[in-house]
């Protein structure tokens, strides 16, 4: 077997370095607290992980999101003591060779891919609960790979969606005047744990984390994950139109069409 370019060990090392940076953030004066890092670290230290096929799942809690940065109606803001974001990521990945452009995230009944971001507007009373949820899914296909859930709607292979089950599964959720419908599903490249954390930091903390996010060490960590997951994603798309330019690579045939939601 040819040498794998991306192995569990490399990915775990990258996550572990990011954890160290985030712990530094916990200790700094930024007033940003991220919980769940130790547990994630323990997972990385497990023995007997297969290098060409690994599974990780983590739940991190991001505290102290600045509520004044957000567009929250005054009457709600009065009730809300603080905003906390919960990030859940579960993914199963395959190692692959560099020249072999493919979708390396595994999904079946046993291994479900998903990134979920739920923000909670927490109150000291239990009368109101405020919540919003975004999630990045990989399209679930049935055995014949053609028919999935939500038949007829466009399903880009990786798609971001607002709202969804995280909100609707509790019957008592108060939707106010918001009409929460299931669509649209917006095309977005896949996120792993590292990229999901980056997504949260740069979307919810912005300037407060710039010392970290602007640093070259941080950028290096992020770019490794992009290289692993986004390079195949975008090469597949580019190849869709510019086929001869990628002759030296072996490219998974249906990946681009799946990304578009055409396959």
């Amino acid at each position: 077997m040819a040498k794998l370019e991306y192995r569990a060990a490399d990915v775990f090392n990258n996550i572990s370095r990011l954890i160290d940076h985030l712990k530094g953030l916990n200790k700094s004066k930024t007033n940003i607290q991220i919980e769940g890092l130790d547990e994630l670290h323990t997972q990385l230290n497990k023995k007997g992980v297969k290098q060409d096929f690994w599974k990780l799942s983590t739940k991190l809690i991001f505290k102290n999101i600045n509520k004044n940065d957000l567009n929250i109606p005054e009457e709600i803001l009065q009730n809300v003591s603080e905003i906390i974001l919960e990030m859940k990521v579960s993914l199963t990945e395959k190692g692959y060779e560099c020249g072999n452009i493919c979708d390396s995230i595994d999904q079946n009944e046993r291994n479900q891919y998903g990134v979920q971001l739920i923000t909670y507007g927490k109150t000291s009373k239990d009368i109101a609960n405020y919540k919003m949820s975004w999630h990045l899914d990989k399209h679930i296909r049935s055995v014949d790979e053609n028919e999935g859930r939500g038949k007829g709607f466009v399903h880009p292979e990786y798609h971001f969606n607002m709202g969804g089950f995280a909100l609707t599964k509790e019957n008592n959720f108060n939707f106010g005047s918001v009409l929460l419908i299931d669509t649209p599903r917006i095309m977005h490249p896949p996120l792993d744990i590292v990229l999901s954390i980056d997504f949260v930091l740069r979307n919810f903390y912005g300037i407060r984390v710039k010392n970290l996010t602007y640093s070259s060490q941080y950028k290096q960590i992020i770019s490794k994950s992009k290289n692993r997951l986004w390079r195949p994603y975008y090469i597949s798309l580019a190849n869709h139109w510019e086929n001869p330019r990628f002759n030296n690579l072996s490219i998974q045939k249906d990946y681009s069409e799946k990304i578009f939601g055409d396959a």
Partner: protein
Amino acid sequence: MPKKVTYLYFDDLEEAANAVKDNLESKSLAIMIQRELPWKDMISYLLDHESSFDGLILDWRLDGEDDSNADFSSEALAQQCRRLQVDKINGRGFTKSFPIILCSAQPGFKTIHERDTTSEDLFDGAFEKSDLEDQEVFLLSLINAYKVLSEPKKSMQDIIGLSEEEQIKIDNSLTRKISEINEKQPHEMVQFLLKEVLNKKGALVDITNLAARLGVSVKSEGWEELKKEMDAFKYKGILLNDERWWANLINEFWTNNFEGTTLKFLTAKERIGFLEKKYINLKGKLDEPKLSNGAESKEFWTVCFASGNPIAEIDGFIVDKHLHYSWQEREYICLDEAMNETSRGEIWDSLLPYEEERLKSYFEDTSD
């Protein structure tokens, strides 16, 4: 039937000692009371009678009465015994290691003792006398632990009760640490397991945490039955006094049995849904725990350190307690406890500094 074990108990107040003896003795446990002797005689007595006892109980102040013979502290005696368990002094030493327990009739003694950390590592347990009376199971488990740990070729499995296959599923740093300590004296392993593993949430969880994680109220009709289904993941190692379960084994069992889902990511309702599908006889017999005041998430994972109510980590405030090892997990308190401070100063002292700050915002917003 296992052999009856004997603790030799030194106290300068025989009345108090007899009360402890009466309450503690059982089919499996005998207490042999002795008055203290001057240092030299005391050491000779212990060495001469080594074969007649399995463990030692010392009153904290052997010099407390007018007619006391003790010209030494219990800490000094314990220190000398530990030394004689590994080494000969003046040509004499013990042939075995045995547990040493400290006790006292003085109320609040435990806190005093805990503050005095210099002697902390000498004893396998420190109890007020009234509490010692309930420690039969613990005292017996200590004797058994010393027996296992004194075997020259004890394995990891002998100590923590996990097969090699299971060992790789738990935190690697825990098994590494145990292997390290395995080279040392039995009492070091006993100290370590009691302080850092069995009595700290993380690698192992107790019954309230287990229930929270399964998303089931302990008051549910089917709880006992469900608990039995989790027997395979129970701690079966040495020093077991109270039920404990391996958190990682439960997590892995869950993923393998329930469509690859992650237990921690599911609401109580979803967890119960899966459980009822697998254990058909439990259908309709499992109830979700109630949300505590101010809580929003039904992805229960821990329990309030003060009230014991199940909460999701996102709904709790973190207690300021130093964690020594990676397998240990934070303790949380629920919003009600944090705001009302019912047991502040007793069960918990302070929150992490940033959690105290977070808490303030809850007071600001409710002041209207």
